[in-house]
């Protein structure tokens, strides 16, 4: 379909060069828009609902169109089967005829994302993406509640990432808001996110998730659960999964973060304390009604003389502290 009388004569690079000229840009945009509008009204059959088709858009927005075939949203054009409201530029931005008739301008775009509120952007994207399982809980996710919309993290036309159209590399984007997490991943002992071995989404679902099946309440939040709704830690740390005959109850009931700081720690093994015996002793007090028996988490026996270095390194003997099949005290 020939949309603009000049469009075929201007090879894309030439058009770009012209667009780079500040003095020429406004007038050219107007001319392209006018030409597109003219062509739309004269050369193309009118489409219902004010849709003009993506060919009309590329006349003025050649810089976006040029690489749009690499964009996942190009599938809607390539398929040729989608209805106008689900096809190409107008699939997201809405019918373009009024925009063309007005010779451009953000305010004439039915859905200009830079002018939209976060919830409007969310609703627009969910028009197609609502039925994806990973986004099933997006409407009440902490991100949505705090006004973090799709366009806060995704850049549809200028994404530097090979997948998911992210606005930045994933960890940098998350660090942008979660600054304290950046500090945790800069600690000497950490999961290898900055090194590229892991990504935040290995453990978290930024679109929201069902509540964690371990611990109480809704903490921790936005967790990407492992198969079988386990903690995501068990996706990699397969040896901790069990089932063990002798489970260390807090590991299974409250989660790994009972003893570990999952992002990073100044302490080895991502432990919450610099030495292991304080980690253990803070729970194993024998006091009150804590523990599975409601009479205190068991106090160690009297042979555990804290003055003996042997008993300051609990897992020297209790080597299977995450769970054991052979020994109720996790000795083997």
């Amino acid at each position, binding site marked *: 379909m020939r949309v603009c009388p000049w469009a075929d004569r201007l090879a894309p690079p030439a058009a770009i060069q012209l667009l*780079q000229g500040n003095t020429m840009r406004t007038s050219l945009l107007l001319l392209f828009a006018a030409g597109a509008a003219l062509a739309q009204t004269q050369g193309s059959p009118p489409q219902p609902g004010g849709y003009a088709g993506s060919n009309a858009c590329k006349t003025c927005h050649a810089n976006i169109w040029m690489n749009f*075939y690499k964009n996942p949203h190009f599938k809607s054009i390539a398929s040729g089967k989608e209805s106008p409201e689900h096809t190409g530029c107008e699939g997201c931005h809405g019918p373009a005829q009024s925009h063309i008739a007005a010779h451009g301008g953000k305010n004439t775009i039915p859905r200009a994302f830079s002018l939209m509120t976060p919830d409007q952007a969310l609703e627009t994207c969910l028009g197609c993406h609502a*039925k994806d*399982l990973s986004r*099933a809980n997006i*409407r*009440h996710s902490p991100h*949505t509640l705090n006004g973090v919309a799709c366009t806060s993290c995704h850049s549809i036309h200028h994404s*530097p990432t090979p*997948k998911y159209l992210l606005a930045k590399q994933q*960890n940098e984007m998350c*660090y*942008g*808001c979660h*600054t304290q997490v*950046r*500090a945790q991943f*800069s600690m*000497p002992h950490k999961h290898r996110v*900055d090194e590229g*071995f892991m990504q935040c989404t290995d453990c978290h679902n930024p679109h929201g998730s*069902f*509540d964690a099946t371990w611990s*109480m*309440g809704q903490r921790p939040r936005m967790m990407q659960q492992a*198969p079988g709704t386990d903690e995501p830690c068990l996706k*990699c740390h*397969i040896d901790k*999964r*069990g*089932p*063990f*005959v002798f489970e260390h109850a807090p590991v*299974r*009931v409250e989660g790994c973060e009972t003893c570990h700081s999952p992002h990073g720690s100044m*302490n*080895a093994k991502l432990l919450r304390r*610099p030495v292991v015996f304080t980690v253990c*002793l*803070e729970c194993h007090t024998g*006091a*009150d*009604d804590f*523990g*599975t*028996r*409601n009479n205190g988490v068991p106090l160690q026996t009297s042979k*555990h*003389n*804290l*003055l003996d*270095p*042997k008993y300051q*390194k609990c*897992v*020297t*003997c209790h080597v299977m502290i995450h769970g054991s099949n052979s020994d*109720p005290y996790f*000795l*083997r």
Partner: protein
Amino acid sequence: MMKTIPILLAATGALLAQQTVAPTTEQTGSPRGQDTGAYNITDSVEFGYRWSLVNGDPGEYRSDVNYRNGLRVLAAAFSMTSKDGHGRYFDQIVLNTTGLGNDPYQSATLRVEKNGLYRYDMNWRLNDYYNPGLTIAGGLHLLDTVHRLQDHELLLLPQSHYHLRIGYSRNTQDGPALTTAQQFDANGVGLPVFENVQRRWNEYRVGGDIDFAGFKLTLMRRWDFYTETPVYTGLGVVSGPSIGVASDPTVLNTFSRSAPQHGRNPGWMGNLLANHKRWAVNARASYMHGYNDFSLGEMATGISRFGGAANRQILVSGSGDRPYAAGDLTLSLYPTSRLTLVNTTSVNSMRIDGPSSYTEIANGINFGASLYFRYLGVRRVLNSSDADLRLTRWLGVYGGYHYTDRLVTTVEDFSLPAIPDSSTGASYANSNTLRSGTFGIRLRPLKALTANFGGEIGRADNPLTPISGRNYHAIDGRIDYRTRSLRLSAAYKQFYNLNAPVSFTAFSSHSRDYSASASWSPRDWFSLDAAYMKLHLDTMSGINYFAGTGFRPNQESALSYYVSNVHAANLGMRIDIRRRADLYFGYSITKDTGGNRVGFDPNTTLAGAILTAVQAFPLTYQSPLARLSVRITPKLRWNAGYQFYGYNEEFHIFSYDQNFNANTGYTSLLWTF
């Protein structure tokens, strides 16, 4: 200009994320690639040499950093895209790799897709994992393993109303390790033995999605299989006092242990989802039944802690079961375009049980089998109601009430089959209820300015452990100012938990995080990124322990404090010199100043002195880096970088100096073709 924007975005975004000096984040060649027939191709590869010089503790260096000398493909990127979306066999191939060849962290991701027909995703990763385990076992534990993970996912008919999914994942861990084995009785010492780690996990998935009547139904069937076949050996004489009291004469002359286990976890998951203008529903149900069959055979000879010759043989066998069911139902209502009401109900039930038969033959005496049966059941019901109201374009509020009820039941049965009526057993139940409320407000007074404030308060009646949440509140706030070239952000977060009353003291935990960050890109040749964070944590808990110099230690109580004051900062600056060369300077530091030890309640007992020594763990970890990337031709760049790592503990509480400093660097060629 239009051409450079994506390049700048890519380079800047990657730069700021980069905490390791290589691979180079600067790009070369045209991001638009080259047209070949009906496809467009982009391709680049960075090949170089990485080096490192380490002073100090090599174990800690390998645990924290682990870059070593050698040639490697630091990064590679390839894409091939159909220009009209109608490729014959595929429409897009995207391949990205990092660190292949020699880096301790390697990865490769691949996507191949044909519009409307299939999409295949692959993710492969390798982690050369090293951990000296000094903290937990005095250096007697060590892992030097290679961890490999891979995921494959094939989606058929991705754009239709019904999809078929097929997936496969594999996770392996192999390598030498050191661990400890306690000999020759229950009071013996843990002695070092060698372990050959061999872990295998394979998962197979098949499922599909169907769109019908405004609903989407997803069904997934999965099976996974786990095998672990560790072999432990100890040859030669290993004496006990290496860790422990000097008077313990335990000696291990020979040791062997084999402990294979085979597990499988078949399961299924179903999800029903509908999203309409005024309402939405999301329901999930999953069930998995895990099995784990195991046996253990152990033989040790040596000298016992009483000085006599000793030998011990242990035989264990049994199995573990874990049926696990979970269900969630979320109902959402949108009475107006500004109001969202969501109610979620979740139910989980996990039951872990199994027998274990333990037989010990010590010094030729067979003590017979001991039979254990253990059960751990966790049943949890959660209901939450949340409301989100957008009052105006610049003001929104939200709040919610959450209720959780959890029942943990345990059974501890034990019997000696050789002795009539020796069976004992007991069952227990721990019930805990948590009620919590959340609230928040979000403001957007200007287009570039956003502010969010929120909080949560929770009350639990019977938490499982002394450090679990009982009476807690959380407060957080964030202010963001964003323009095209400038971003300023400040945030505060606080969490306070008081677990009281307990009989001799309360547990309290108080964390306060402060952060401020700025990103500034005034020109396309300059960008600056800076952040400062302070993470404060102080905890106080009462502990009970035994200590003494006599024959039998006495029970003592004390307060255990822990104070951590982490000051963290990072700075990144990128300068593009006449589009010919790129310079990047970065610096990151995390410094735990600990607490003021003088301010603590001094413990005057011998054990108290040990506790005082671990109330804080001040250390500094810093890493400055610099990188130069020079464009030699439009398709070729030469790169060189240097990064320093410094780890400095202020107090050597492990009686061992783990400090190190490392000079690392690389040089490479980045070629686009």
